[in-house]
């Protein structure tokens, strides 16, 4: 269990630190890299939960695909020039119009505070549940589930991916009159 505890600690710290940095960084490119750190951390958390396949899929799809795509997008859209101004404390909240929005936002914060307080009193119950079951391979089980119980969703997701592929290719291609 020591190894798991270490892994959990490292992953949790990585996740939380990366996401915090992601919020507070000024550079969108850096934000993407922090996202990468957070995703790796989440993958580590999956590992500690015994979800090896999900963890590796997370790394595969996010690190190998989405993050690189985002980096590309940032680069192609000149992300380096984009530096948010005045990102400190209250100024973090963007100007959204007029006094009404601030009124609504303050109401929202009240509600949020209420929810948080409620949750806070319930937290100890959650921390009592500790699971010490041994690891076992999830790959076989997942494979069987995917082609039996969740077959329709599986097939639909393949169609979705194909649609996304074609759609993305069509959208991103410049129109003919603009090429000249």
């Amino acid at each position, binding site marked *: 269990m020591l190894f798991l505890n270490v892994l959990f600690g490292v992953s949790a710290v990585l996740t939380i630190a990366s996401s915090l940095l992601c919020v507070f960084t000024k550079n969108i490119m850096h934000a993407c890299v922090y996202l990468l750190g957070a995703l790796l951390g989440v993958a580590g958390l999956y590992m500690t939960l015994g979800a090896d*396949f999900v963890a*590796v899929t997370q790394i595969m799809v996010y*690190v190998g695909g989405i993050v690189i795509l985002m980096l590309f997008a940032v680069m192609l859209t000149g992300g380096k020039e984009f530096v948010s101004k005045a990102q400190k404390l209250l100024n973090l909240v963007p100007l959204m119009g007029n006094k009404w929005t601030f009124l609504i936002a303050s109401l929202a914060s009240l509600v949020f505070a209420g929810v948080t307080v409620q949750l806070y009193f319930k937290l100890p119950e959650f921390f009592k549940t500790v699971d010490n079951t041994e690891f076992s391979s999830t790959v076989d089980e997942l494979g069987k589930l995917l082609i039996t119980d969740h077959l329709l969703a599986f097939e639909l997701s393949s169609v979705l991916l194909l649609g996304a592929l074609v759609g993305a290719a069509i959208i991103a291609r410049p129109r003919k009159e603009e090429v000249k």
Partner: protein
Amino acid sequence: MNSTAATFFTSIEAVNQAIVTLSEKVGFNTLPLVSLTIILVMALILTLVVATIGGYGTYAERKISADIQARIGPNRVGPYGLLQPLADLVKLLSKEDIFPMAADKFLFYLAPFLAILGVFSTLAVLPIASGLILTDLNVGVFYLIAISSLVGVGVFLGGYASNSKWSMLGGMRGASQIISYEIPVTISILAVTLISGGMSFGKIVGAQGGLPHQWFLLHNPFTFIGFFVFFVGGLAETNRAPFDLPEAESELVSGYHTEYTGMRFGLFALAEYAEVFVLCGVATALFLGGYQLPLDVTNLPQIPVQVIQSVVFVMKSLFLYYVVIWIRWTLPRIRVDRLMSICWKYLTPLAIFNLVGVSVWEVVFHGQSLAQLILGH
């Protein structure tokens, strides 16, 4: 997490005794701590070994290219120039660490580490011998493919952070090339997992035998083609010639690591050479029988067997390593549009065809290999 190095060592009688006595002295169970330590030490050793192999990769490259071009090659430092990598290391360490003015400092520092992280993380699942594997993950092959895509991020960030047009072009080329060639490589690996019935390296290697006709390479015609798809795709993923467009000297000076100097450049180079070795090791494990010996090892003493197995594995990998270098100094670089068309128009359909073919083969012949069909059982 069975058959890892930690479980192997702790199952040895003497080590076990030592742990028990240590636990009695300290007052708590030290088995987890010792296991963790063993894992860390093993990881360190493996990293150092692979780093050395990667370092000597530069030496091999120079020597073999010299041989091909009828030159002598490095011969001044040590006998036959064998200490040349050490000399290079010293040179790289002592060089000035230049940081370009316009560069993005954070990313500039981060990129080489990401690349090296992607390469060395894969060592965790590389099966060197039948107990000598850091952790035999159930999703080993999948993990290897996934984590090695960090190299792509490193390459891209390196190119971007340098803020130089050569680097930028090299980084973009590298990232797109790595993403694209991941597809045929993954699909041809999928065919192998289909035959072995699992993604863990222990299972895949265990499903093969020591003799060539028991390898997955000769399991059926489709895997035979699949091996070449995998190998060509692997060459492209590691940015080796003839797919070394991200660092094409004649066009981009040195590609994504143009602006890097000193040990940072060394890290990129090390990542490249180590990745080539990992590629060769994976190819060996997947297609060439891995560490399997052509005899029954169940009743033999374990440690000598493991030594022999490691030697066999490393020899096979080094042979492929030689082939990679041979290809580099034989074939000219490919054109950039050809690169993508080879991947999308030839390798990917071929890999899918192989996958379908292997599935059909498995169904029709009930998993028997070609040799089993010809020779009988």
